[in-house]
């Protein structure tokens, strides 16, 4: 129909207008990067929301160094090439520090650019060990590493659950397979060899065929490395197939949706995640504000992003500088008391103490296992 062809021009016009309003001079700019659109848009927006809350808190206190703070968003659509473009754009615009990216496959190539541009990068979500293994001074992560998490999961399966027939599935992503591989490594150290090891495709909905094959091996535990949409489908479909194995997974599954949508199937699942945020004094503010501002509970990575943003801003305030190396030094040597609990970084920029504990789904809620 000819008459409708240009119907979104006005939308664009409105957006331009809004943009000109939002733009203000003399601010300190922070970059937040991740997949803001596309199939992983939900995760990118968790990073965004966490950073927004932190920045609003600081702005309410008058900003830092007498300047207001501004967030610049960089959408990488979990495409490494776009991540590099975003990194170059950030460096070019004089971004003081970057919160992001989400995917390890984006954080790693982008970090090279930030390193060259002398910009501090704190990722709230990339757990692949390789990210910090290259010895760049400007990289930090508020989240643990896959190997730290894998050890906790394997330990729990072997010592607490006392199970030895473990099937391992992952979603063929850097995160999912990385976590699964580290868990398998730790299991093998405890002399437990997985009875099944295989990958599924992220985004697909039907995992019954592979689960049927897993069922054949009669595992007592199914460990899954991946994120919550597949975990929801896996738990539902394994129960439908009559499998009784315990479901164990990592922080990518610690999402409200996992319980809400999987329902009964999620009961009794074990998830490795950081300690209870609601019991941490420093976290109360962000949890409440998120509910007020976005109308929902925080996602798994929101608080990581909130903490990362706060560290960066605190470093700016403490060093009275926006110089990358100075900020990095401050972040590295400080003993942080954060909404995630106490955090200290090692030389590489990883969290010193493995933050992971095990949670269980009980009566429709995540409960920390003692």
């Amino acid at each position, binding site marked *: 129909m000819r008459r409708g062809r240009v119907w979104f021009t006005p939308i664009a016009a409105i957006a331009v207008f809004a943009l000109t309003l939002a733009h203000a001079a003399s601010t300190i700019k922070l970059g937040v990067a991740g997949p803001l659109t596309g199939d992983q848009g939900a995760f990118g927006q968790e990073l965004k929301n966490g950073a927004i809350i932190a920045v609003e808190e600081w702005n309410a206190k008058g900003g830092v160094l007498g300047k207001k703070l501004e967030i610049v968003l960089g959408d990488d659509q979990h495409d490494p090439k776009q991540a590099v473009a975003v990194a170059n754009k950030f460096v070019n615009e004089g971004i003081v520090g970057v919160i992001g990216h989400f995917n390890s496959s984006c954080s790693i190539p982008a970090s090279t650019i930030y390193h060259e541009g002398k910009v501090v990068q704190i990722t709230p979500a990339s757990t692949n060990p390789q990210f910090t293994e290259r010895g760049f001074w400007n990289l930090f992560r508020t989240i643990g590493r896959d190997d730290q998490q894998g050890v906790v999961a394997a330990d729990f399966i072997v010592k607490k659950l006392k199970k030895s027939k473990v099937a391992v599935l992952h979603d063929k992503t850097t995160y999912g397979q990385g976590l699964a591989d580290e868990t398998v490594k730790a299991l093998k150290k405890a002399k437990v060899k997985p009875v099944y090891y295989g990958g599924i495709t992220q985004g697909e909905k039907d995992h019954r065929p592979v689960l049927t094959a897993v069922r054949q091996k009669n595992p007592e535990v199914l460990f899954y490395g991946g994120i919550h949409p597949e975990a929801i*489908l896996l738990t539902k479909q394994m129960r439908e197939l009559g499998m009784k194995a315990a479901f164990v997974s990592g922080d990518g599954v610690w999402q409200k949706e996992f319980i809400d949508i999987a329902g009964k199937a999620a009961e009794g699942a074990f998830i490795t995640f950081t300690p209870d945020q609601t019991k941490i004094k420093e976290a109360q503010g962000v949890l409440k504000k998120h509910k007020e501002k976005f109308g929902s509970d925080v996602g798994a990575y929101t608080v990581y992003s909130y903490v990362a943003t706060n560290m960066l801003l605190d470093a700016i305030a403490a060093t009275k500088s926006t110089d990358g190396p100075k900020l990095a030094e401050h972040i590295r040597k400080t003993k942080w008391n954060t909404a995630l609990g106490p955090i200290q970084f090692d030389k590489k920029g990883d969290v010193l103490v493995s933050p992971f504990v095990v949670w269980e789904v009980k009566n429709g809620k995540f409960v920390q296992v003692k």
Partner: protein
Amino acid sequence: MLVQQLINGLTLGSVYALIALGYTMVYGIIELINFAHGEIYMLGAYMGIITFGLLTTLHLTFPTSGAALLIMMVMAMLFCGACGITIERLAYRPLRGASRLAPLISALGVSIFLQNFVMLAQGPRDKGFPHLFAGEGIDLFGSRISAIQMFIMATSVLMMAALQLLVHRTKIGKAMRATAQDMQMASLVGIDVDRVISATFLIGSALAGVAGIMVGMYYGLINFFIGYIAGIKAFTAAVLGGIGNIPGAMLGGLLLGLIEALGAGYISSEYKDVFAFAILVLVLIFRPSGLLGKDISRRV
């Protein structure tokens, strides 16, 4: 395990077939690979959730969940049908005389647009689909077949039969076949080609709406991105069976589902798509127009 894998494969295949039917129908008329079809299916699933939400907020409780399901289906069909004809008007009709690739790109634009529109309007997070289907299912040779699996298989067969009847036994079906053969001739003999194509999009999109509800209910989880993989799989299924051919879409869907289930179950779940495509290539080498497609002899 074999029986269970066959059940898995047939259900998965029926799901593919449900989406492939609309795909193949649109293709049959205007030879357009409608990339946006997967998105229509996604819209159908969302419409289902929205309708259900409306019903519960208005406290319209029903004696059986079947009534709620029926209303959801009708709403999804209406909505998807309306979207389908609007998209055709907006993005495909102006390109009818252009090269074959122009509407393909335009369809892709529509697909990206719809995905992002739904992401912005409904949020990027996954949504749970209401569980409306009671019934426990039956045990079969030590394997389980659930009620909803049977329901999905039945629906896809039913839909295929209905479509086949529509195309071969009704007046509009006759007009569709004429339009598919030769659009110009059809308009010369008094067929309102625009209207026939609109009707095709209406029906094809309504079918996608039904598929959205069924699949949403089966998996219990939807998000704005479900149309992407579904679209590729449906396209593959439609081509495997002979694109443009309605029983072909059904056959292609079932076959694809079976190949994936058996491949994942017996060989490797990582490489199952590789097997699926390898078999597709093999089939096409021996039958270049798909399993049931007519062998289009070279036009001279």
